[in-house]
């Protein structure tokens, strides 16, 4: 066919290459920042103390780190057409295991493990537990063919109970400068959690785009039947992403535990699975699976945290905060909807003529 390319139609929510467009979440994030520039005094103010940078912007990144980590793993799980509701509970499990390994309470079932001397072993063992939790989810979904929302609901509910065992139901507090560094330390002037996010994000990028895993994940999520006939093993792919999602939740759990210096199995990571799903969705990854965007998920997570910080900084009455959060989320979702945008355009045109 020799038809010359003609002028392009209005941009679809995805580019012709099928990659999620990040214009809208970035736009809303920019609007939020501009709003703060004018109405929240000192929002962009940065100070340097003891070689560390402080300020609202830095605070957003530091507080947003756990959700950013969760959204990395969640993005892959959602891209396979699944979902992981258990990440909050996995955070709690990882956190209490780490605390139990540090403190070694006498009545702890983990008391026989003596690794207090080695920070590396404490971290590795805790993360291994998180990965095993992910493996459990993966096996339920991939081998037993249980719907992901049900399969991960099991660990979401049971996980908070499991999280009590390592410390025998005690909210153990600890002092461990090395471990605390994970949550409160600094690196290159930035909070250490930010460094961890950067490292895990790069790791995710390498894992998915440096190998063929990203292609397989998107194939399985977009058309499982065709992927199977093309030779992709969906069960291996799924198990792998659930394990990775568990790992990310584990890292988030370690950061949060180090931050509060306690093993709070009741509240650690509570409801964060919802923020992570929201972040992935705001980042343009469809909940029905297929194309995913890691950068999008991170932007989504930053957007959520910026919103929370803005609301807190404005001193909005407590009951209103969640309502405002909800409204901004609706706005981003509307902007991402092509139908809504074309309606707006039509209204605008009618107004002009």
């Amino acid at each position, binding site marked *: 066919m020799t038809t010359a390319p003609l002028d392009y139609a209005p941009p679809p929510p995805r580019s*012709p290459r099928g990659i999620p467009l990040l214009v809208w979440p970035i736009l809303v994030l920019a609007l939020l920042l501009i709003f703060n520039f004018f109405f929240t005094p000192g929002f962009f103010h940065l100070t340097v103390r003891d070689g560390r940078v402080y300020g609202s912007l830095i605070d957003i990144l530091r507080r947003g780190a756990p959700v950013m980590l969760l959204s990395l793993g969640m993005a892959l799980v959602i891209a396979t057409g699944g979902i992981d509701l258990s990440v909050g509970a996995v955070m709690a499990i990882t956190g209490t295991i780490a605390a139990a390994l540090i403190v070694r309470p006498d009545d702890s079932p983990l008391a026989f493990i003596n690794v207090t001397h080695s920070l590396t072993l404490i971290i590795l063992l805790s993360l291994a537990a998180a990965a095993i939790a992910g493996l459990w989810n993966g096996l339920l979904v991939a081998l037993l063919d249980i719907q992901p929302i049900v399969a991960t609901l099991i660990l979401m509910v049971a996980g908070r109970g499991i999280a009590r065992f390592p410390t025998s139901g005690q909210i153990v507090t600890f002092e461990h400068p090395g471990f605390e560094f994970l949550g409160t330390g600094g690196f290159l002037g930035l909070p250490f959690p930010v460094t961890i996010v950067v490292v895990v994000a790069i790791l995710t990028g390498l894992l998915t785009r440096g190998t063929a895993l990203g292609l397989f994940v998107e194939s399985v999520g977009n058309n499982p039947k*065709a992927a199977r006939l093309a030779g992709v093993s969906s069960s291996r792919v799924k198990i792998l992403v659930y394990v990775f999602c568990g790992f990310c939740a584990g890292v988030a759990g370690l950061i949060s535990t180090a931050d509060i210096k306690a093993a709070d199995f009741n509240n650690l990571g509570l409801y964060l699975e919802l923020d992570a799903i929201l972040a992935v969705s705001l980042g343009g990854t469809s909940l029905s699976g297929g194309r995913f965007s890691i950068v999008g998920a991170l932007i989504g997570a930053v957007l959520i945290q910026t919103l929370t910080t803005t609301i807190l900084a404005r001193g909005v009455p407590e009951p209103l905060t969640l309502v405002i959060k909800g409204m901004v989320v609706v706005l981003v979702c509307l902007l991402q909807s092509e139908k809504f945008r074309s309606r707006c355009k039509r209204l605008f045109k009618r107004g002009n003529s």
Partner: protein
Amino acid sequence: MTDSALLTARGITKRFPGVLALDGVDFTLQRGHIHALMGENGAGKSTLIKVLTGLYPRDGGEAVLDGRPINPRTPLDAQAEGISTVYQEVNLIPELSVAENLYLGRQPRTFLRTVRWRQMSRLAREAMARLDIAIDVKRPVSSYSVAIQQMIAIARAVDVNRAVPAKVLVLDEPTSSLDAHEVASLFGVMRKLKGEGLGIIFVTHFLDQVYQITDRITVLRNGKLVGEYETASLPRLELIGKMIGRDASAITGHHPPARAASTGKAFLEASGLRRRGAIEPFDLTLCQGEIVGLAGLLGSGRTELARLLFGADKPDGGSLRINEQPVKLRQPRGAIARHIGFCSEDRKAEGIIPDLSIRENLVLSLQARAGWLRRIGRRRQQALADQYIKALNIKTSDADKSIKLLSGGNQQKVLLARWIATEPGLLILDEPTRGIDVGAKFEIARLIEQLCQDGMSLLFISSELEEVVRMCHRVAILRDRKVVGELAGDQVSEENVMATIAGQPETPHP
């Protein structure tokens, strides 16, 4: 425009990014006519249908239905104007009853807004009776054959109890999954509706059917109108020539492959392979440099046989040898590792990964065989994509476009490229030419012959007997999920294949 013109479209134009899909197309449908819409894939048939039925907004032109200008924005709009559509894939809810499907969203209600079930069943029976079909309307749709489901969809489309009765019925490839008997009863229904004054737009790839039932033919090519003809006065070859835009002799001049007895060694040997409810035990040997055909009626077990050879389904018994090694295939992955490729008959559901690019779709099987850790580099992927886009004449602006934006024939070529890239020893092609245009069919046939000459073993499945006979060195014939015969060399002819299919039928055909 004559008095009996029911639907008139003038200068319909539709643009997509980078493509002018419809370029000022005129189309006129007469009352009480069956009008074929013909063209290669990418000619603009589906686009024209979608514009007329409100799925796509048009960028230019006008449409007049029954003297009233129309501009439907949604299929519901179109239906309210009197244009109803039945698509290739039946759009019914399988678990609901026939009556519920017919009256979904417009059930007769009592004053308490509860459904009048008895009245609904009666209306449903009447609606089906109008098409001369008597079935239990309380049974779920899924308990009926695809043909009956198709009729139910038509009954819903033309139901007289609609606020606006249908004036135009669009049938988009309604016959592609029906057997000869079912097609005949569908045609009966179409003639009946035609007699009632409906205009029917009929999209199909089967030339026989066009000549059997239609009154007029409109031919499109590359988004432009080629012309409108009276069916009776347009010879077949001329029609094909107009569709593909070249001299008809180019097709008739195509010679069948030399039917030399195969000298290649056996690539795959199946003996006693079987699967309950799918296929009776069969023996089959496929040699290098040989095209073996599978012939048989729809549902005779052709696809089921092929799926066993590819490991897509697990056999209940029997043995399989590949390159003289006994193997057990449990997953397609295992078959691919042993250099077998399989192009499914259902391109949309089992072939393409719609949101991924042409490049990604193309390298998928090669990458799956290499494993996720050994990623095929971006540059190598691009080189492969460019190579096959050129070699197979895939019409696209670049390799990074989503595959779903391509026409059916071009999607099929990408899927063929996916397998050829894995350099298979055996390539199984299940209906590789279904639903694609004459030109692409021709190109794919040439490609298959080329692959065969290069020493590949090919298993070719097609509903079009003429195609099987023309392409294959050897043909295995199936009836009622059993391999009932094999023809080779000079024995391969349409008459012989049909005679074998007919055989001594245990039950007389309806």
